[in-house]
């Protein structure tokens, strides 16, 4: 699949994982994409394809699973997956970053169909996810899962640590975090990122962020009474 004239037309879902590079190319103009543009692609795909119970028809359903993209930087992979799953029309992708486009270089939930939060400034998604999990619990909605995706450099922001400690102490077991670890945090995380969650009482798994089966196993591991963090390791950003 190398051409700009993709055989699948809009509306001809389902798209497969193999179609994502072509969808990405509509935003990047490039046929090949480096690790930085695709660090989140596999985790996003496995979540939307096999884990999250949300579809374009249920984006307003109170009982849907929530996915909050906290790491709003480099959202092309997110937009490509949302397009592949029918949340937004694939023909919108080419407008990426344009004045009238709903698709900014950071997502805005008021503009992007299917986006649960607007993000861009780092460290906002996890506290918002904590509140979302609290709000669902308070309304007796114990089934919906709340997922949030952050980056290992984003984890520098102290607001994450406020949320991690609280969620662990509170036993917010419908909260799940996936940390895309491309070794981009300036000072690193000695002892590993998962240790920060474990110390606060979270269930954790650290897996190869390109291995779909490993991601799926980690995403679906039961974690009764505790929130769950999956550290998905991918190629270092500056390798």
């Amino acid at each position: 699949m190398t051409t700009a004239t993709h055989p699948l037309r809009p509306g001809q879902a389902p798209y497969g994982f193999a179609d994502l590079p072509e969808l990405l190319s509509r935003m990047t103009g490039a046929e090949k994409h480096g690790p930085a543009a695709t660090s989140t692609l596999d985790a996003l795909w496995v979540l939307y394809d096999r884990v999250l119970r949300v579809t374009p028809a249920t984006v307003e359903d109170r009982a849907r699973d929530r996915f909050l993209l906290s790491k709003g930087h480099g959202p092309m992979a997110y937009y490509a997956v949302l397009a592949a799953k029918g949340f937004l029309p694939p023909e919108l992708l080419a407008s990426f970053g344009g004045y009238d486009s709903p698709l900014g270089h950071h997502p805005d939930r008021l503009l992007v169909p299917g986006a649960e939060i607007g993000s861009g400034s780092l460290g906002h998604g996890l506290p918002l996810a904590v509140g979302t999990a609290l709000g669902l619990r308070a309304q007796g909605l114990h089934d919906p899962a709340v997922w949030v995706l952050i980056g290992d450099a984003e984890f520098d922001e102290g607001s994450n640590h406020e949320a991690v400690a609280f969620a662990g102490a509170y036993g917010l077991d419908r909260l799940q975090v996936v940390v895309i670890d491309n070794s981009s945090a300036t000072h690193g995380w000695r002892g590993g990122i998962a240790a920060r969650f474990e110390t606060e009482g979270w269930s954790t798994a650290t897996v190869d962020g390109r291995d779909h089966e490993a991601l799926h196993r980690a995403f679906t591991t039961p974690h009764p009474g505790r929130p769950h963090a999956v550290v998905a390791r991918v190629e270092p950003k500056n390798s």
Partner: protein
Amino acid sequence: MDTMRDRFIAITAELLDSDPRLAVVLADISAAGFADAAVRHPDRVVNVGIREQLLIGAAGGLALTGLRPIAHTFASFLIERPFEQVKLDLGHQGVGAVLVSASGSYDWPAGGRTHMAPGDVALLDTLPGWNVHVPGHPDEAEALLRHATAAGDSLQYVRLSVHANRQARPVEPGRFLTVRRGSGAVVLAVGPMLDAVLAATEGLDVTVLYAATVRPFDAAGLRAALGDRADAVLVEPYLAGTSAQAAHDALADLPHRVLGLGVPRAEHRHYGSIPEHLAAYGLDAAGLRQRITGFLG
């Protein structure tokens, strides 16, 4: 008399019983006062600990699920410390909340600068959509809290203080109240400033307006109160001049003058009591009278 904060705790506990949409988020401050309510509503009274970024972020998340969050702590830790969360986790997400502060600008002078937030209203003025209430009495605080919690998914800030006027006024959100009528300039007293303003303007031919809600700013009310001169004096219990632009906008098509009185921008490195600080800021009756008569000439 109970304080505004006492009344906030009592009334909110009652509202939690009757309104299933309400949820209270705390950051340790006032948590003891909400202990009984937390027992009755364990999922809707949440204390996140001393974590103010999470306080606002969690409020935003609660609102995303359709609840009406009330977040509360001292003004310095509710507005100033997590200001980016106020900007991005509420308004930018398209959700509302009720933020209820205590301590204000000078409630704990012995606590010093770290617990003073005279800039909170000015900060909110940089964001769209905020309603700002500055009650001057616990009864007014109750009325405005009832209004704010029931006001759909709007953005509401209720600024509580231990500094209060002797009597409550029949306040209406968004409307200035005429307390004394004269034929000259207008003096607008905000919240706890009213008693000192009334004393300071005794015998002067001015109209005294009272505002327990400053955003939206009742431009029509200010216009209607003008006498034979378009002079307005604003007396606010936070940063001096915070509402000056709103007053200028209200009078834009008239030759006019505005004097903005309030807490000065300069750091005041003294402790002591509220009266001592008000006097030092020129916000006691004597200081106000001197500056108002100086301005009006």
